[in-house]
């Protein structure tokens, strides 16, 4: 019995290949975008785990001095007092053209399980090899190849479990490479460590758990949350397609269901068979989606890797490994998505009386009451979304705002379209125009799911492109302000730096030292810069908020400038005291924008920095000159400086903008994909509706409209609906952009960006959506224009 009934149900798809294709394609596309995002996230997280978790350091509590590094003696003293601890030194160093992250561990006291390389290999190494210069260091094979001809490095050993760009070595070797002067960053607490802090021996130390450290995964969480949100959005758009297609398939088969039941198939069996059919289709589409998702992820991953490197300095490989976890999650989401989409249809069949009319209703005709209910739910979501950031802090509140905005607007769409079309009908003159508006309004319920997905895609597009363009405009202006020097020079050594400054004195308009120390600020990674007194800073530096006399206070040594990230994180305003080191506190004289930097940063007058940090490296300089090219040539000839040490303003700006553009490549790609999925949704809705349009089009045809006229009106209808949807998507998208700039960005990155409007982009997007609507309408309209008159006549013949 079941086999015969299942065959009858499935035979529907054989006779409706287009519908079958749209169902499979919709679910596969939705799964693909979701899986692609999961694959990217999973690949990146695996890299972080390799960076943090492989060495297992993330699982230990630590002791650290919030003001900065501590002397190695503190470790020795605590160790003598019985504290089971091990020291860690971290930092970045430039080797040739490679920027490498160094991790120094004490190979004696660190737990053996957390050391790189396999135990046999480490045992085979003699202590002299490990501890005495040049020492040994473990790096990823790619990094080994990149560093193989660099002098002054320890002997490098390949370790495939290490992420690219990271070097792990003994703490003594790391101290030499980082020129840390015998200081360490933190102490990891091993098994058996007492509770609390060693207040008697080292009162400056504080205890930190894993979360309070600024590890890469925490910094990049917001980026991945962003991607996940995009994945979910794409999946939601895909679900609209699936919901529509499954709903239509159920509606078209109402008579078959009734016949099956009349011929003796119990309701329970019918529901079970439909469920099996859906699961079968979801498995097929899910499998395809995962394969497609893998391809999308593989294509996007190099840009994601570049983004993460540019934004956070996190290293992940540019190639994708297959992971069954995300594949399973993709399949699970496809199954759940299909079931959610089918739930309504299954429930309707469960409730459908056996003797109910078997004629398909006008597809998905929603009553005014259910439209109102839907609109009310939309309003509630809008209100809840807006309330979220008011009532709660954090990134999730920001995403709740965005979710509320998007879903709320989508649910309100049919009612608003209905109102707009009624207004059109009221203004219409002539019978054809009146019929056009009334008939368009009648189409809205059937098209609403597709139009809702178009609204979601358009609003996302407006929101994200406004955010990116605002960011680009601000960033470009900010670069112009911030990169005040025409030439940037890095001296190879302190001695060269000294000679360079003397040489430049008569040849440049000004030499501005760019000297800094890496120093933790409030327990998180940070840096303090020292600058000299020069008008160029006063006139150019991008201050967001300041005291009455910021520069006067600053140059008098009575104030510090801090970046927006630090101000936001520590809730600091101009006038508040900011702690820059042990016993070193200054009032905040101004807050400046510092886009793209995840770390806290402070700037003080250079003499003040030198006073607190005697060993300040003095290598980088900004040069004010009218002839940067000539000066660079002269520097190259005089000092033999490589080109990498001489960067002119233009190339620095170009590089920064290139990093910026690459950062948003992924967002742009997902944007386009989501819009394509929405375009596909309209196509499928129009195609499926077109098969049910004949009874509505036959009367005007019989009354004198030609098929060509009807086809033109159908095209116009598609364009009108796309335009009206765009009209609602635009304000929704702008609100979305505002939430991204003013809420999500602040929570995720610690900076707020001004919002700019780009009407030219809107026009372009409107043109795109009209083109999508035209393309989507093309096939159904062509079919209509070629419909044989006998088909129209059949409508009247069947009316009995």
């Amino acid at each position, binding site marked *: *019995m079941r086999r*015969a009934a299942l*065959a*009858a149900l499935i*035979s529907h*798809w054989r006779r*409706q290949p287009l519908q079958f294709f749209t169902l499979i394609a919709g679910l596969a596309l939705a799964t693909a975008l979701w899986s692609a995002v999961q694959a990217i996230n999973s690949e990146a997280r695996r890299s972080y785990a390799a960076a943090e978790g492989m060495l297992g350091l993330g699982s230990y509590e630590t002791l650290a001095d919030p003001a900065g590094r501590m002397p190695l003696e503190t470790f020795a003293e605590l160790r003598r007092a019985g504290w089971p601890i091990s020291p860690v030194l971290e930092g970045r160093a430039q080797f040739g053209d490679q920027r490498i992250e160094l991790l120094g561990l004490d190979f004696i006291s660190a737990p053996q399980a957390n050391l790189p390389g396999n135990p046999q290999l480490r045992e085979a190494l003699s202590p002299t090899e490990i501890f005495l210069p040049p020492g040994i260091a473990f790096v990823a094979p790619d990094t080994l190849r990149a560093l193989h001809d660099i002098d002054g490095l320890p002997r490098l050993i390949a370790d495939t479990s290490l992420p690219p760009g990271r070097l792990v070595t003994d703490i003594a070797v790391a101290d030499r490479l980082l020129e840390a002067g015998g200081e360490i960053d933190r102490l990891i607490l091993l098994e058996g460590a007492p509770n609390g802090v060693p207040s008697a021996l080292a009162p400056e130390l504080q205890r930190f758990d894993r979360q309070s450290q600024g590890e890469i995964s925490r910094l990049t969480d917001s980026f991945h949350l962003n991607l996940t949100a995009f994945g979910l959005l794409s999946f939601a758009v895909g679900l609209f397609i699936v919901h529509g297609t499954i709903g239509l398939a159920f509606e078209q088969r109402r008579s*078959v269901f009734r016949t*099956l039941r009349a011929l003796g*198939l119990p309701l329970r069996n019918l529901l079970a068979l439909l469920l099996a059919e859906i699961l079968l289709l979801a498995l097929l589409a899910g499998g395809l989606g995962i394969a497609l998702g893998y391809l999308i992820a593989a294509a996007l991953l190099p840009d994601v890797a570049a983004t993460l490197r540019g934004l956070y300095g996190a290293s992940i490989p540019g190639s994708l490994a297959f992971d069954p976890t995300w594949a399973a999650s993709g399949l699970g989401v496809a199954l759940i998505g299909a079931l959610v989409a089918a739930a309504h249809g299954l429930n309707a069949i469960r409730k459908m009386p056996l003797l109910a009319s078997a004629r398909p209703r006008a597809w998905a005709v929603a009553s005014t009451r259910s439209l109102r209910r839907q609109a009310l739910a939309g309003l509630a979501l809008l209100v809840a979304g807006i309330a979220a950031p008011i009532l709660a802090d954090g990134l999730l509140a920001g995403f709740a705002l965005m979710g509320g905005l998007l879903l709320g607007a989508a649910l309100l769409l049919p009612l608003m379209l209905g109102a707009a079309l009624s207004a059109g009908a009221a203004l219409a003159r002539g019978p054809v125009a009146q019929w056009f508006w009334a008939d368009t309004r009648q189409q809205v319920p059937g098209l609403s799911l597709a139009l809702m997905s178009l609204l979601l895609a358009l609003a996302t597009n407006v929101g994200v492109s406004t955010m990116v363009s605002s960011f680009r405009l601000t960033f470009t202006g900010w670069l112009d302000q911030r990169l005040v020097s025409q030439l940037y020079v890095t001296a190879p050594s302190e001695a060269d730096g000294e000679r360079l400054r003397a040489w430049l004195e008569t040849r440049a308009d000004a030499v501005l030292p760019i000297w800094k120390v890496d120093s933790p600020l409030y327990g998180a990674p940070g840096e303090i810069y020292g600058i000299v007194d020069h008008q160029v800073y006063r006139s150019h530096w991008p201050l967001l908020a300041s005291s009455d006399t910021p520069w006067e206070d600053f140059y008098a040594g009575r104030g510090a400038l801090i970046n927006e990230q630090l101000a936001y994180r520590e809730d600091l305003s101009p006038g508040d005291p900011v702690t820059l080191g042990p016993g070193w506190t200054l009032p905040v004289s101004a807050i400046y924008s510092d886009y793209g930097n995840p770390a806290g940063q402070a700037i003080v007058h250079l003499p003040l920095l030198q006073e607190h940090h005697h060993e300040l490296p003095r290598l980088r300089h900004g040069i004010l000159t009218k002839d940067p090219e000539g000066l660079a040539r002269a520097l190259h000839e005089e000092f033999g400086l490589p080109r990498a040490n001489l960067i002119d303003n233009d190339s620095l700006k170009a590089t920064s903008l290139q990093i910026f553009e690459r950062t948003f490549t992924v967002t742009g790609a997902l944007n386009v994909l989501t819009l394509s999925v929405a375009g596909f949704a309209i196509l499928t809705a129009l195609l499926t509706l077109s098969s049910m349009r004949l009874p509505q089009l036959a009367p005007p045809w019989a009354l004198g409209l030609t098929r060509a006229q009807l086809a033109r009106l159908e095209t116009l209808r598609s364009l009108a609906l796309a335009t009206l949807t765009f009209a609602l998507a635009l304000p929704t998208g702008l609100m979305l952009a505002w939430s991204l700039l003013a809420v999500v960005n602040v929570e995720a990155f610690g900076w707020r960006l001004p919002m700019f409007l780009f009407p030219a982009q809107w026009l372009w997007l409107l043109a795109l959506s009209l083109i999508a609507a035209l393309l989507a309408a093309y096939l159904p309209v062509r079919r209509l224009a070629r419909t044989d008159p006998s088909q129209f006549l059949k409508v009247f013949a069947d009316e009995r």
Partner: protein
Amino acid sequence: MLIDARDLTKTFQTADGKLPVLNGVSLQLQSGETLALTGESGSGKSTLLHLLAALDAPDSGTIRLQGDDITKGNDASRAAVRRNRIGLVFQQFNLIPSLDIAANLAFQARLAGRHDADWCAALSERLGLSELLSRYPEQLSGGQQQRVAIGRALATRPPVLLADEPTGNLDEATADSVLEIMLDLVAETGAGLLMVTHSTRLAGRLSRRLHLSQGRVA
């Protein structure tokens, strides 16, 4: 006794209140007997047929099919009655549009697990469908579709065939030919036939006639 229905009542809830459709109808049908159920629109003919076909349950009264009370039981047991013991022919044919004619013909027999390929072949021969087996319902005329529906109903060799206005959608000549075939096949299989019809002409061709008026046997 093939069908023994007694004192059947059925009331529907409408927007204007309760609408009694059957008010104590009784009827009997013997094996091999052909019975025409006639009456004006709204007299309760189709409702009575739906009750006899176990598509619906009466508010009161009993229906015995070959001695078994089919008014008792749940959806699954009523479905089993329809599947195994009743052949149904509808005015709208109700073929499965996505299956070809051969599959439609064999469908109920397969559902009941009693598919007999030889019998189906014989049926399609008798119904003049042999050349049309690979076509789909939409490619057939109304008369041809109704012949498929009759074949489908008889493919399980049911003891009773219930037909609801089977010729209502057909022209006179086609209606005559369809009824002819149906009567021949019923006689051949020994099944009982109960046919709802508006046409007194067609009703006259059956062995007995029962007229319903305002929910009662007139």
